[in-house]
């Protein structure tokens, strides 16, 4: 009898011991909704690429930190000439690419010249348009001369599209990415998962995880089940808003609702009557109740915005009151614009839930002021073709997820067809201003101008809905850029 009890105690102790040895976990499985088409951030716009490689596999001269600030990366420091036109970057030494080749100033010149060259297929070629020449001073020093001073230059160099690649591997990065980061590419089972592993030879602070697996789970119900079953331990951008309350009350999980750079707008074709009349656009803005929209389409997640600027930015001004829901005012504006009985129009909706669900709500609200908007669902490829490229649309809903993209309203031939000399002038000034206070002032003027002109009705900022195991630490709360920076992620114990 006694020995029997002892045996049980022994088993119990060994069970405790073995679970303790499992406790210090160094691998992590993350869920992602969309599979990247390939893994070269310098040759594609898909956020899914950066969500895997940014800061983990590839690094640029600078990088964007969790608060949206510019931090040094491969460049340990830099100086700016007095006229603001020449940046001299001092590079880290003893940096190696994952294939063992050395990193030096030549790689920087190669990467920047490749991104802005004639043959470039960089999705953000505009980031490099300010660059005039790139010169190698010595293996650890690079001089970048700009055509004119650019307040955004250091920020631009922190984008995933501006990472430094090696000439030896640039051609094959799509399938086998070779960077300088704390993780290296391990394997990719297409349609299923991508695995990255710790880079033992990393030049900087080493990663705390040994292995991270990104598992592709497109279906919201499947995402919920995968977290509950423990197959996936973190969903940095969880797709199923409706099941978030279930995780909020479950102590095994942590739910973190942060902000992103995704301004969701009701885009209007500013050259197509009757949308060429600012009063019509204002009427539409006042006809939309942002709260019911966020509650109905986003299950309450999302921050209302009154202009095209992220609320977490220091230069943000809240203009939601100026463009608040006011159906009476909307009707009055419609009458003043010469449409007291409203009109018929169309609303083209791309596939994301915010657009499809949001579109239904907005169409219902517009009906209150007499606007009969026919809903036309389109695929992304059709949307890019019809709405974005050929401007064959009246209204559409889309989220602009790129950071620092206020300047899209100054672009000629952009799909809004908004053409304001005053706004273009403001953007031009912002471009060449480096002083912080002056920039803030200009940013605020630009936001106010947009809230007055309403080239689009500004709806809400997309949330970053993170759900992960309560024992995980170090994942980003907000999404100042689309990335899953795993460099300081670890399991607590």
């Amino acid at each position, binding site marked *: 009898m006694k020995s029997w009890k002892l045996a049980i105690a022994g088993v119990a102790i060994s069970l405790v011991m073995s679970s303790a040895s499992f406790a210090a976990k160094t691998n992590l499985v993350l869920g992602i909704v969309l599979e990247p*088409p390939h893994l070269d951030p310098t040759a594609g716009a898909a956020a899914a690429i950066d969500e895997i490689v940014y800061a983990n596999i590839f690094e640029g001269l600078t990088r964007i930190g969790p608060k949206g600030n510019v931090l040094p990366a491969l460049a340990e420091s830099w100086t700016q000439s007095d006229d603001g036109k020449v940046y001299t970057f001092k590079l880290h030494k003893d940096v190696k690419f994952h294939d063992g080749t050395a990193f030096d100033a030549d790689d920087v010149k190669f990467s920047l010249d490749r991104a802005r060259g004639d043959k470039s297929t960089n999705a953000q070629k505009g980031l490099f348009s300010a660059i005039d020449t790139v010169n190698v001073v010595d293996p650890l020093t690079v001089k970048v001369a700009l055509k004119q001073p650019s307040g955004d230059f250091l920020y631009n160099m922190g984008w995933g599209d501006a990472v430094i690649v090696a000439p030896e591997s640039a051609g094959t990065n799509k399938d086998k990415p070779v960077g300088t980061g704390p993780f290296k590419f391990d394997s990719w089972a297409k349609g299923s998962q991508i695995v990255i592993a710790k880079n033992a030879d990393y030049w900087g602070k080493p990663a705390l995880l040994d292995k991270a697996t990104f598992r592709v789970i497109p279906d919201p119900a*499947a995402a919920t089940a995968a977290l509950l079953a423990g197959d996936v331990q973190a969903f940095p951008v969880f797709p199923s808003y409706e099941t978030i309350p279930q995780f909020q009350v479950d102590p095994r999980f942590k739910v973190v609702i942060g902000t992103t750079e995704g301004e969701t707008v009701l885009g209007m074709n500013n050259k197509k009557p009757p949308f060429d009349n600012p009063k019509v656009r204002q009427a539409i803005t006042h006809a939309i109740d942002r709260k019911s929209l966020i509650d109905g389409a986003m299950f309450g997640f999302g921050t209302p915005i009154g202009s095209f600027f992220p609320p977490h930015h220091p230069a943000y001004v809240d203009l939601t009151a100026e463009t608040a829901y006011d159906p009476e005012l909307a009707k009055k504006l419609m009458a003043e614009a010469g449409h007291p009985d409203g009109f018929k129009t169309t609303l083209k909706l791309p596939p994301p839930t915010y657009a499809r669900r949001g579109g239904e709500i907005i169409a219902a609200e517009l009906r209150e002021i007499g606007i009969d908007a026919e809903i036309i669902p389109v*695929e992304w490829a059709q949307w890019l073709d019809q709405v974005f490229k050929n401007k064959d649309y009246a209204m559409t809903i889309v989220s602009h997820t790129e950071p620092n993209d206020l300047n899209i309203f100054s672009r000629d031939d952009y799909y809004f067809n908004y053409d304001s000399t005053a706004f273009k002038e403001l953007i031009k000034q912002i471009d060449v201003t480096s002083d912080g206070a002056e920039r803030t002032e200009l940013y605020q003027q630009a936001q106010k101008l947009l809230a007055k002109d309403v080239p689009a009705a500004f709806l809400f900022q997309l949330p970053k809905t993170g759900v992960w195991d309560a024992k995980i630490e170090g994942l980003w709360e907000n999404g100042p850029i689309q990335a899953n920076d795993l460099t300081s992620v670890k399991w607590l114990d």
Partner: protein
Amino acid sequence: MLTYATKRALIAILTLLAASLVVFAMLEIVPGDPARLMLGMNATEDAVHNLQEQMGLNQPLAIRYFSWLGGLLTGDLGKSYTYSVPVFDLIKERVAVSLPLAVISLALSTLIALPVGIFAASKRGKFSGTLAMGVAQVGVAIPNFWFALLLVYLFAVTLRLVPAGGFPGWGAGFGVSLKSLILPSIALALPQAAILARVTRSALLEVLGEDYIRTARAKGLSRRQVLYRHALRNALIPVLTILGLQFAFLLAGTIIIENVFYLPGLGRLVFQAITQRDLIVVEGVVMLLIATLILVNLLVDLSYAIVDPRLRGRS
């Protein structure tokens, strides 16, 4: 037998050729530019143009069709626009999931359906027979994705016996891979089994009403003997037809179940390729599926001849 077989095979090849033309033409009509889709909203015109050139999208239509067709004949399906790896390799990886899944589901569905169908036919008019068909009717009505979710919540979330989804890859071990296919194949098999059981029952009942069955009974065979020796064999032709159709469906039409279990199967590959306008992948997969469908039909046609000797001499 030979003339019957050669004629069938010839028809199959012609169908395949016609299908290649239709598939290619249809996908050309679909709007959307894969290069622009890849580079997104901030891309400059010249970057998009460079990528189009890289992808070979600015060559004339006829040249692209014939080079694609020529590739097909030599087994080269081209290179994916988005993944930039050979389409053949992509398909191979997915077939390694979809084919076992289809075979297991089909086997499971047959193992359930035949006994139930035979049972229901032999107990026609009795309570047990009606009950069996009632259950089958429910099986037909239940959507498979909903049934799949119930399975996940019971066996993966609550009992934690199997993973909620995903596929580790055959390289990770036969056992774990097979385990990840259990729930999806049950979810796929049950509705199929319900349909198959109903078809088996009605085919059997039709045969059981024939004169030769009465003759067989009259010469002294038992009910059982008549059922298995005479009726079942004659009732197999409609059952085989449905089986052939179900196999084609299970191979390609399982996208919803693949989504619920996030399996990297053919259905998801083709869906993803369509949304990304990776047309060369769509063309490759669709051609493969057409070829499979034609092959399965051919096999079903030939198996008719095995089941029913009268068909062998016909040409």
